C-alpha cells in the first residue's frame, strides 16, 4: 500500500517555474531516492507529495486515489525533516506519541506503540528526555520514531542525515535501509549525496532544474547514464570527459570514462602524461594526470597503494568497451 503517481505536476513560485511538467511513478514498497544539485527542486517535489506545498497544476495519486486536494494529515504519509523538527517542549515519549494523540487514540494504545517504536530504535533509555538533551543521531531517531508510529503508507525523508557527522551518517544509512527491508513500506528519500543514493535506492531519480534527467536502478545509472549530466553526477570520483580528436575517433561528440575503468600500464598506453596530485585512500589511490594531450586533467582510480608521486611519467590504458559516448546534445550513443 503506497504507490505514488505524479501526473504532469508543475510548481511555480510567482513567475518562476521551479518544476516543469513532471511524470513519475513510485511503486509500492519501493525505496526511491531523489538526487540532484542544490536548488534543483527535490525538497519542493517532496513537499508537494506531502501536501505542504500546493500544486500549480497536475495531479498526485496515492494508491490510485487522487489526493491533490486532500490535506497533508489525511494522505497517510509521514515525513522526516532535515532539521528533525522535534517539538522542543515535549519529552521524547510525547514527541513520538504526538501523531497518535492527534488521532485521539487511547493513552494505553499510545504508550504501547511508543514503547515498541522506541525499542526498535534503541531509544528506550531516552524516553523521558527533552530533544535538547539528545545527540544529533538520537534526535534523528526520534524523528524517525515519530514517523513510524503512524504506520504510514509511505515515508518521506528530506536530507535526514545531512546534519550528522560522517561516521554516524553511515550508521544511520544502514539503519534506514534495514528499516526498509523489514517494513517493506514505500520510502522517498531526498539527498544530494550520491553515495547515499547509490547505496540505499531501489530506484534513483536524478533531477536537474526540476526536470527528471533519468530514472533507474543505481547500476543502470552507473552503467548506462542517459546523458552527460547523469554521467557526471553519478560516480565518485567524477567521470572523465573529453571532446575533440579522441571523441571523434570513437564516433562521438564527447566521450566519458570512469576513473576506475582506466588502467595504469608500464608503457604503450593510449594516453601518456605526468602525475599531478596523488590522493592515497589506502584501499585506492586517486591519481590526477596532466599533460596527456587532452584538454582536461584525467582522474584515475588505481587499486591499492601506488608508489607514484608528483611529476612521475605515467601511461594510461582506458578499457575501450567501458567508454561512454555522447552526441552533440549530450545524449548517450549506443
Amino acid at each position, binding site marked *: 500500500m503506497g504507490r505514488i503517481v505524479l501526473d504532469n505536476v508543475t510548481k511555480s513560485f510567482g513567475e518562476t517555474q521551479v518544476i516543469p511538467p513532471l511524470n513519475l511513478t513510485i511503486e509500492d514498497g519501493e525505496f526511491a531516492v531523489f538526487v540532484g544539485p542544490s536548488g534543483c527542486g527535490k525538497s519542493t517535489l517532496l513537499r508537494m507529495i506531502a501536501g*505542504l506545498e500546493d500544486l500549480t497544476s497536475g495531479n498526485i495519486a496515492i494508491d490510485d486515489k487522487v489526493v491533490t486536494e486532500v490535506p497533508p494529515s489525511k494522505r497517510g*504519509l*509521514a515525513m522526516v*525533516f532535515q532539521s528533525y*523538527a522535534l517539538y522542543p517542549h*515535549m519529552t521524547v515519549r510525547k514527541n513520538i506519541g*504526538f501523531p497518535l494523540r492527534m488521532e485521539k487514540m487511547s493513552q494505553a494504545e499510545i504508550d504501547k506503540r511508543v514503547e515498541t517504536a522506541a525499542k526498535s530504535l534503541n531509544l528506550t533509555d531516552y524516553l523521558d528526555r527533552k530533544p535538547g538533551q539528545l545527540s544529533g543521531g538520537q534526535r534523528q531517531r526520534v524523528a524517525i520514531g*515519530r514517523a513510524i508510529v503512524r504506520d504510514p503508507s509511505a515515508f518521506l525523508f528530506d536530507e535526514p542525515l545531512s546534519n550528522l557527522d560522517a561516521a554516524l551518517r553511515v550508521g544511520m544509512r544502514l539503519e534506514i535501509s534495514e528499516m526498509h527491508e523489514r517494513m517493506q513500506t514505500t520510502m522517498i528519500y531526498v539527498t544530494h549525496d550520491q553515495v547515499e543514493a547509490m547505496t540505499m535506492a531501489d530506484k534513483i531519480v536524478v533531477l536537474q532544474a526540476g526536470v527528471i534527467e533519468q530514472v533507474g536502478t543505481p547500476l543502470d545509472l552507473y552503467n548506462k547514464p542517459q546523458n552527460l549530466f547523469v554521467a557526471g553526477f553519478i560516480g565518485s570520483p567524477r567521470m572523465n570527459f573529453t571532446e575533440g580528436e579522441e571523441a571523434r575517433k570513437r564516433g562521438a561528440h564527447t566521450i566519458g570514462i570512469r576513473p576506475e575503468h582506466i588502467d595504469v600500464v608500464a608503457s604503450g598506453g593510449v594516453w601518456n602524461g605526468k602525475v599531478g596530485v596523488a590522493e592515497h585512500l589506502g584501499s585506492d589511490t586517486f591519481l590526477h594526470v596532466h599533460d596527456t594531450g587532452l584538454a582536461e586533467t584525467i582522474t584515475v582510480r588505481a587499486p591499492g597503494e601506488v608508489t607514484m608521486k608528483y611529476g612521475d611519467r605515467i601511461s594510461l590504458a582506458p578499457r575501450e568497451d567501458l567508454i561512454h559516448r555522447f552526441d552533440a546534445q549530450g545524449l548517450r550513443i549506443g
Partner: protein
Amino acid sequence: MSDRRLPRLLQTPAVLLLLVWMLVPLSMTLFFSFIRYVLNNTIRPEWTTPSLSNWRGFGNYEFVLNSKDFVLAIQNSLLIVCSILFLTVIFGVLIAVLINKSFPGQGIVRVLLISPFFVMPAVNAVLWINMILDPVLGLQGIAVAGINGIVDNLQTMPVLGGFFSLWPDFAPISFRATQTSAYAVIMMVTWQWTPFAVLIFMTSLQSEDQQQKEAAILDGAGLWSQFRFLTLPHLGRPIAIVVMIQAIFHLSLYAEIEIVSRGNGNKNLPYLIGEFANNNIGAASATGIFAVILANIVAIFLLRMIGKTLME
C-alpha cells in the same frame, strides 16, 4: 588569589556607589519609620525635625496597620497588578498570533497597535476618564444614550414593542465612583501595556520554527493543537518576561489613580504613601517598608514560578 586583587579594586567604586545608592535611602526610610516625624505640627514642634529623641518604636507600623486604608491599599495593589497582567497576556497573545499572519496593510496595523505604548501615563488617564469612560460626555455616555434611544424607538413598534418595553433603561457607569475606579485604572493601563506584550510576543513568534509547524500539520494537528502544543510553549519565556517586567512597573502605579479618583475608594500602596507623606513622614516611611516587603514577596513568588521557565 593575588591576581584577583586588581579586578576587585577596579570594581570597588561601582560596588560602593551601588551600595550607597540602595542603602542610604533604605536606612533613612527605616530610621524615619521608627520615629515621630511630621512636616507640620504647631503643638509639638519638636516632631518636625528627625531625631532619635522622637523614637516611637513600632508605633508608626501600628498606626498604618490600623488605618482603614491600609488593607484596601494592599488588596487594590494586588487586584490591579494581577488583573492587568492577566488581561495584557491574554490580549497580547491573541493579537500577536493574529497579526503574525501576513495581510495587506500589515505594517500600518503594527505601528498603530504599538502606539498606545508611547502615550504618557497621565495623558492616557485623562483621555480615558474624560473622553471614553465619562458617563455623560465620554464615548460610554454617548453609546449608552444611543442604545437607550434605539430601545425607545423599538418599544413603539407594533408587535415586538411589547417585548422591548420589558427592557430596562441602561444606566451609564461612573468610573470615578468608589466601587468602580479601580476598574477604570485596570482598563486604561491594560490598553497602554497590551502593545508591550504584543511587541514581545510578536518577536518571539517570528522566531518560531516553521518546520515544527509543518511536522505538526503532517501529524494531524489542527490550528488549535498547533497553538496549544507548539506556539503556547514557545511563548512561555516571553510571557514570563512580560509578567515580570509588568509586575514591577504596576506595583508602583500612581498617576492613573490620582487622575481617576484622587484615591477615592481606590488606593494602592504608593498612593497611600503619597497621602501620608503630605504630613506624616513617619507613617509614610512605615508604609514604604510594607511596600518593600510586599514587592519582595511578589518577586520571590514570581522568580519561583518564572525562574524555572527562564532557566530551561
